[in-house]
């Protein structure tokens, strides 16, 4: 009952062109049937994410560890709430990050859980920068 060959093949890596995404905007792409949020963060959002005392977080992780160095403005996360799998809404909630409408979990501008029942931060999918404006997810 594990995924069949065609399902696995359809889950191969994808490339995403980032050049049309302006600062402060974000796009949602689908990979393996999961929505991936790619946010072009503003200076303010990055500062907010880095000003937090990491040890005080429910799932401690620094913003630097969640983005690729040199591409700090890009946040790439799987848009699936770690509680029960709903899709959080971007740019909502008290932390200017993501807000899950199902059970009220709130994530910050680094996709880290700040409030609500979700146990963990939004997962970062495996990805790398192919060029400055293109990433490969998977």
């Amino acid at each position: 009952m594990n995924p069949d060959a065609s399902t696995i093949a359809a889950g191969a890596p994808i490339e995403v062109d980032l050049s049309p995404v302006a600062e402060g905007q974000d796009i949602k792409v689908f990979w393996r049937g999961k929505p991936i949020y790619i946010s072009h963060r503003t200076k303010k959002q990055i500062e907010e994410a880095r000003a937090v005392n990491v040890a005080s977080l429910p799932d401690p992780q620094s913003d630097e560890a969640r983005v690729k160095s040199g591409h700090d403005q890009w946040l790439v996360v799987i848009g699936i709430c770690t509680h029960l799998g709903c899709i959080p809404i971007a740019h909502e909630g008290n932390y200017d990050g993501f807000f899950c409408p199902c059970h009220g979990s709130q994530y910050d501008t680094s996709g880290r859980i700040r409030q609500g029942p979700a146990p963990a931060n939004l997962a970062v999918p495996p990805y790398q920068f192919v060029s400055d404006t293109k990433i490969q997810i998977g």
Partner: protein
Amino acid sequence: MSGPSDYQPSNPALQWIERRLPIMGLVHSSFVAYPTPRNLNYWWTFGAILSFMLGMQILTGVILAMHYTPHADLAFKSVELIVRDVNFGWLLRNMHAVGASMFFFAVYVHMLRGLYYGSYKEPREVLWILGVIIYLLMMATGFMGYVLPWGQMSFWGATVITNLFSAIPYFGESIVTLLWGGYSVGNPTLNRFFSLHYLLPFLIAGVVVLHVWALHVAGQNNPDGVEPKTEKDTVPFTPHATIKDGFGVACFLLLYAWFIFYMPNYLGDADNYIPANPGVTPPHIVPEWYYLPFYAILRSIPNKLAGVIAMFSAIIVLVFLPWLDAAKTRSSKYRPLAKQFFWIFVVVCILLGYLGAQPPEGIYVIAGRVLTVCYFAYFLIVLPLLSRIETPRPVPNSISEAILTRGGKAVASVMVALVAAGALFLGSLQDARASEGNDRPPGNHWSFAGPFGKFDRGALQRGLKVYKEVCANCHGLSFIAFRNLGDPGGPGYSVAQAAAFASEYKIKDGPNDAGDMFERPGRPADYFPSPFPNEQAARVANGGAAPPDLSLITKARSYGRGFPWFIFDFFTQYQEQGPDYVSAVLQGFEDKVPEGVTIPEGSYYNKYFPGHAIKMPKPLSDGQVTYDDGSPTTVAQYSKDVTTFLMWTAEPHMEARKRLGFQVFVFLIIFAFLMYFTKKKVWRDSH
């Protein structure tokens, strides 16, 4: 099912079979000669009701499966086509969907009856545990069945419930992958759920056989909780219990038919009339009502793993009930304290159910936690404690003694008082509602409302004109074919008129012999063409918000009725939230945005649209569409007509449903009376 039978059929052919397979003897000893306690009340008929419902679900389910397509791209449409095109498909679907709710309703009554009368106590522990297993199987079956229509609630319910298993340490993720058959809920998930949904009812049927077997070995419990001692304490199953169960089933059918024919969507969720979309989560995910208490327990625990454990424990704790409650007296009738705590427990369960449907915030979360503690305290503290400290009242020596000393008809008078009070309350609230003013869509007088509602043909024809000239520029109507315009119960066009209407459209067809797509005039069998080739095109052309397809819009939109309206809606058959909302939105545009409300660029203010910012510009203005029949060409009239038309597109067989409903009710009421009088006659000498 209690040992070899001495039953001998008189027919020689049957005797021949009986010597080789004593099946007639089995049936005779289990359902004819079987001694059943004389004092059973109507709560004991729910066993028969449940067997009936299981049969009903399997029968309707097997026929539905002949027409259903388990594929992520086709499932939603195939369900709609069952409702629209299959002969009596709407009836089958309603019977099956409402049947699930009725099945759970009956099983809850059955379980609470067992709880109240101590039917789980020695020697019926195994019987009780088999019941818990049936209940668990039912929950799994019901959940998977709800996924099959592949609407928004199906999809997101499946996502939330399968994700529960990811809370399990170490194996969680692998289990979830096995459930999904992929990286997320998708087509493989739908396929395996369909397969399991078809399998599990037969497993249930198997466990039900064991359940009945265990019942017939231990014998039935009874309201007084004393075992039958002499012949005088029992009556033969047939005709006594058979006819009584028959009457119980007939009464239950009245309730069942009320939902099937008059409020099939009352127990469902409007969001499930929107096709599944993995990219959009509905703002408020709610399971079906029968899971709500457990959902409330899940959400009241802030830790994910603990929440999942609490939810499953809430059911598993039932398995241990025979040993948690060690009291010697079975029936709560003779246990003054246990009786009170039982009713408190019932109230706790109902309140948990109510909280499960509320958004998880503020006071609801706190109340949920308190009630979760109460729920578990009942099983883990109250019942074990009561069995030690409670002094039960004396139990009668035998069932026949209990019958002789039976009290008056207090229950009946309480019921009459409750009904009278309810009617008064209802009346006063109706007045309160009339004087209420807020952003809730105003009620309308729809010709199609109520048990004898019919569509106004003129309004349907005018509504079609409004749709064609205005709405069709952006909105599709993809489940409606031109032939439907000539169907009985519809706008009342002839077949020729429908064909002529179709021929005005250009339909893309092909490929032809040269391999090219071509356009041809529409035929009656064609469906209304959509204005955009796909959702993305619709989105781009309309400022980012794709105009929804209108075929089901009056069923896919609703608004919260809130407590206590949803209770009264059951009696008043109010089903028109959708049309009220659609008509209110069409008329709710205001040029002047009220103070304190900001509307983003490219959106318009609408009083009734959730959030008030709608992407659709004001679609209708006075005099925009000409009417041939002299009806006023005002926005109010246009809205009313087009909403009526869209109610018909959402449920083309509504008139047939209500008409058949009336016939069924007349039959059922007569049938129930006949059953009642037959039962009275059969039982005359036994009371």
